[in-house]
């Protein structure tokens, strides 16, 4: 790891100021991706801004048809939240299977979504559930947020404060983990929402994306059987020693069926 200055701001304003003051500063949330990156000397931030003491980023609440989750909410807290489990059980299921227990005890939803690792779980939920991303500057619709491999709509120094998830009629998530890293090789989040069926796929491509073929098939009937024979094109999907693009495309349909079955 290279040297850096460490900061632990006590408010959102202070955190934002630190990040804006230096373009080589990095925000540190749970650190489960950032620290491995720093250890391998793949990044050399001048300053690391720890968000753990920023009160505005914390907390889970459900009111009416909306679940609100603060950016600095750890996976374990989402997984164990009775409120989340009641409102969007698929979301707590997803959180309960990210990484391993020790990773879930530190990793946060804000860190995961802001990093937008193409194999992360949360982006699929955010996109499929049509969540809104609230930053310290604006709100961003999920459809406008993810920009491909590790890229998002966030500006430099902009921080995610919280997510609001509209409660869907039903939703489910199924993933095929990479056998080595246990990241999603293909993860499919299906949701029947007020604005129709939304299906988001993570792991299979260079970034999370909506699977139109699956959405179209489920729009007719939200059942696993309606996905029989539905093929998702493999063009543009990741291909590596763990799985070819063709295999990943096949798995998208398989996982979509399982997610639909899980949605009940």
């Amino acid at each position, binding site marked *: *790891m*290279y040297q850096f200055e460490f900061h632990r701001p006590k408010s959102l304003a202070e955190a934002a100021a630190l990040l804006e003051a230096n373009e080589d500063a990095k925000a540190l949330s749970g650190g489960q991706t950032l620290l491995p990156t720093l250890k*391998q*000397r793949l990044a050399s931030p001048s300053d690391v801004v720890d968000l753990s003491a920023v009160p505005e980023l914390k907390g889970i609440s459900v009111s009416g048809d909306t679940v609100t989750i603060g950016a600095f909410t750890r996976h374990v807290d989402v997984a164990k939240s009775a409120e989340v489990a009641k409102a969007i059980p698929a979301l707590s299921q997803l959180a309960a299977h990210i990484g391993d227990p020790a990773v879930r005890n530190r990793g946060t939803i804000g860190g995961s979504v802001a990093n937008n690792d193409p194999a992360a779980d949360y982006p699929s939920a955010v996109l499929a559930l049509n969540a809104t991303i609230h930053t310290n500057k604006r709100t961003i619709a999920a459809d406008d947020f993810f920009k491909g491999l590790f890229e998002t709509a966030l500006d430099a120094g902009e921080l995610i404060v919280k997510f609001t998830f509209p409660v869907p009629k039903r939703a489910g998530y199924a993933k*095929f983990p990479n*056998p*080595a*890293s246990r990241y999603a090789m293909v993860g499919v989040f299906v949701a029947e929402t007020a604005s129709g069926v939304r299906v988001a796929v993570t792991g299979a491509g260079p970034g999370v994306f909506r699977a139109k073929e699956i959405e179209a098939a489920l729009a007719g009937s939200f059942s696993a059987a309606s996905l029989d024979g539905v093929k998702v094109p493999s063009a543009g999907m990741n291909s590596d*020693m*763990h*799985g*070819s693009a063709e*295999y990943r495309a*096949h*798995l998208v349909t*398989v996982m979509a069926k399982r997610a639909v079955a899980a949605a009940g």
Partner: protein
Amino acid sequence: MTAHTGIGAAVRRKEDFRFITGAGRYTDDINRPGQAHAYFLRSPHAFARIKKLDTAAAAKMPGVVAVLTGADVQADKVGGLICGWVLKGKSGEPHKAPPHPVIALDHVRHVGDQVAVVIADTLAQARDAAEAIVVEYEPLTPVIDLRRALEADAPQVHPEAPGNLCYDWEIGTPKSEVDATFAAAAHRVSLDLVNNRLVPNPMEPRAAVGEYDRGTDELVCYSTSQNPHVLRLILCAFILGIPEHKLRVIAPDVGGGFGSKIFCYAEETVCVWAARKLGRPVKWTSDRSEAFMTDAHGRDHITKAELAMDANGKFLAMRVDTIANMGAYLSTFATAVPTYLYGLLLAGQYTTPQVHCNVRAVFTNTTAVDAYRGAGRPEATYVVERLVEAAARHLKVDPAELRKRNFVPPDAFPYQTPVVVAYDSGNYANTLDEALKLADYAGFPARKAEAAARGKKRGIGFSAYIEACGLAPSAVVGSIGAGVGQWESAQIRFNATGSVFVNTGSHSHGQGHETTFAQIVSDRLGVPIDQVEVVHGDTNRVPMGMGTYGSRSLAVGGSAIMKACDKIIEKGKKIAAHLMEASVDDLEYEHGIYKVAGTDKSVPMAQVAFTAYVPFNYPPGLEPGLEESAFYDPSNFTYPSGVHIAEVEIDPDTGITTIANWTAVDDFGNVVNPMIVEGQVHGGIAQGVGQALLEGAVYDKDSGQLLTGSFMDYCMPRADDLPSFNVGMTHTPCPHNPLGVKGCGEAGAIASPAALMNAITDAIGTEIQMPATPEKVWRAIQANSSAQAA
């Protein structure tokens, strides 16, 4: 008391307290006053010429003590790393042994090859400075693929090894005779097999600390070694040119080895050399990424294997042609692994009268390949047991039945195979029957039908393995090229108050010697087990020994301990006889008590020991003290055997293979601690399952980059990849060692890959190569169903 802790008891391990409380002492836990840290700059290229190497800027970085290169190594007359097994090829000429510099000179030959070492006050400073070293490379086209390496126009890894050929070796029945048998045989089966390259990955990465005492001119090397004396011998006599009595090698707690810590590597060599050169202790600890690039890998064969049978399925001959990867350089025992540790096991448990095996070993621009748990024997078992299962399918005979038809019968031992070795003892059909019962083989069709109803493909597969371990008569291994003897040492040293040191030349890095060896001594000498201290891993505290590998510790090291116990008992008898005023000839001895036959007179060992050190009432002319050494050189290998049965269920939608049941019945002869032995079996199975299902080191075939360079991409077996195992045992004692024991450490890894791949083939009806990744399995199922549709 000894009834509960002696031979055969599942004694809880003496060593565990320190490990479960965080008080273990591994090499990286050792810090010496004034210590500096070494960081190696490594080649990013698989093959390149070093055009320029400029360390001047790095040397000026904060905290840097020295930046050392291959030129410095050469200037100090430090020799290259060695291969300690001289293999003679078909033509009688020794294997090609190209130079293996400790730090690269003009060329780098694999990704991770050492280019320079920075030694600095802190590791972070050393790593910072390494980035300031300027290296200009002229990249060369590497050769990665085994077959490609043998092609006429392939890039040449070493000028000393034309055609990238290290050796061309054969063993067994003359090829022409085998060919004639094949030509006339009623049935033939043939398989092309890949034995995938594995990365050993003990959880403790390698580490070393070198320290020099100017006053005494003594060097100490703390090292994660499985065999500290052999490391000392190699470092002193072959590389550094220092007398053996001036180097002390200490291998403290070692966190697993599996073969990868047998060898003498560049890094410990540098730590010792630099410690003397710089007058400061020098420490190096591998990180996992370095381990992937520099720990010797395992396996990596491609093989064409054929079996000829008569009309009744009796095996007539086997023909095996293998290409084995040596990597870029020869590791310490690399040449022996795909030859004597492989070809000699190709008869398996069967009476196959003719076996011919040819092995060509090649150099490639990859990490060196050497012994990894099983070392050659898993590869042999994989060949034999995949062939036998293919034969059963070909003949439409039950695979258990076909094996029974061909087993060496129990009355045929010692059994001379056509590939040099003579098996000591075994009862193969008995072990198979036990396994069939434990696996409920009779119930398999019903389980398969039930799985099919759920849309899953269920398969069952066998592996009946034979192993030769507990290396072995020194004269024999010497005659086939070994550079060191294969005996083991033991020293039993009583203290006056009755407690005992047991100094062993073998080394424990997870095997539980501190318990097993203590059980033997406690049982033989009647000393309470908590009064027995097993000492290992320090060349200054224990006699010269060979260390631990090849499932040899109990069979060879334990036998040495038995011999030393016998000597103690003999001497003690004279003291006891004197104390009881009886004739030595009238004394009986059992579990630490000397008795005068036919009387109630007795003297315990503790009193004998005390008397030996306080010899006031003592046999005239007898030396005081109670301490004996013994060296044991076995008269043969031991030949454990067993049957593993894998039962799998495959999800045709994803290709994921789930292990539904695993049954292992092993015959290790007598067993000292069944709990520890079962643990060895479990661990071996997990590594074999890893090979068959999950693991495989993958290089980019063009660039030679290691694509599986971390746990993110190299798939280690985890708890949820595995089931609990059904482990059973049969006991056919080894007839030629005093404990009647056979080795157990490698068996699981030897047996399991074939069992698992046979089960997968049974489930999907197609041969695929290891590792059976979900995509490979899925594709095979797809190909099958479209073939059936067509």
